[in-house]
């Protein structure tokens, strides 16, 4: 469950992107206790991805291949969670909290995809 602080940070970040007319990617906040990060959708670098996350994603399919309608390793959730894991490597994937995903163009909430449900729930 996301904290109010995490939701607010993600919302503010999305608003800043909207003001800059940078609409192209979905953003999300991830965090655990005091450590919080915002990141965006797009293919994660295969060299920087945390082992635990890569292993879990590989149970769905290879990185950058399409499963359940979306590409594995390209969601904002994956990018944001990877930043958290690099700082807090002992965290389990289902212990990472997420804000709502937001599209900066319209500030609408974006539903969580099936791959992210399988990875982080």
């Amino acid at each position, binding site marked *: 469950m996301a904290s109010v602080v995490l939701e607010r940070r993600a919302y503010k970040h999305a608003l800043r992107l*909207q003001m800059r*007319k940078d*609409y*192209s*990617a*979905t953003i999300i906040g991830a965090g655990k206790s005091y450590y919080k990060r915002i990141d965006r*959708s*797009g*293919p994660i670098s295969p060299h920087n991805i945390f082992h635990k996350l890569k292993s879990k994603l590989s149970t769905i399919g290879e990185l*950058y291949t*399409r499963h359940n*309608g*979306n*590409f594995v390793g*390209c*969601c904002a959730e994956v990018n944001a969670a990877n930043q958290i894991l690099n700082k807090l490597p002992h965290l389990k994937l289902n212990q990472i909290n997420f804000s709502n995903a937001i*599209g*900066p*163009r*319209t*500030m*609408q909430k*974006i*539903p969580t*995809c099936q791959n992210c449900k399988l990875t982080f729930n």
Partner: protein
Amino acid sequence: MAYSLIEQLSRDLDIFFLDNNKIIHLASGCGILPEGLLETDIYNDSVLSTIFQNNLNLEVDINPNLTDILNLDNQGLNNYLVSFMDIAKRGFYTYDKTRLGNNEDFDFHLVAKPKSPLRRGDIFETYKIKQELITSKHTIPDDFTIFNLREFI
């Protein structure tokens, strides 16, 4: 080059094209694009940067059905409209993907349009857009209802 499937599904792209009587902007909403729009990657970014260099400020008609279509409250509607108003006031008919999160859904709706549309030639002249924009053979609906984009491209 054409947009890759990864680009289509991980980015809310700005797509520009023409039909027989208007110049159209479409927000892809991280959905799959109809095949006929994949090659717009050649010019979309340059059109987008060109139009924001111009301060045209036309009066705009906003889709009166948006709160029903998108289930938004007043604040949500204001936030939603910011980017589309920015485009429509510069002379473009601007459309959005209706259902986010379902990337194989091709339903779109008109968000806003200029009250008195510019002639196509005037837009080309104003924005120095070359006439090589992809053109749909069909007229894209402008009646503020939801339509399946794939049937018109």
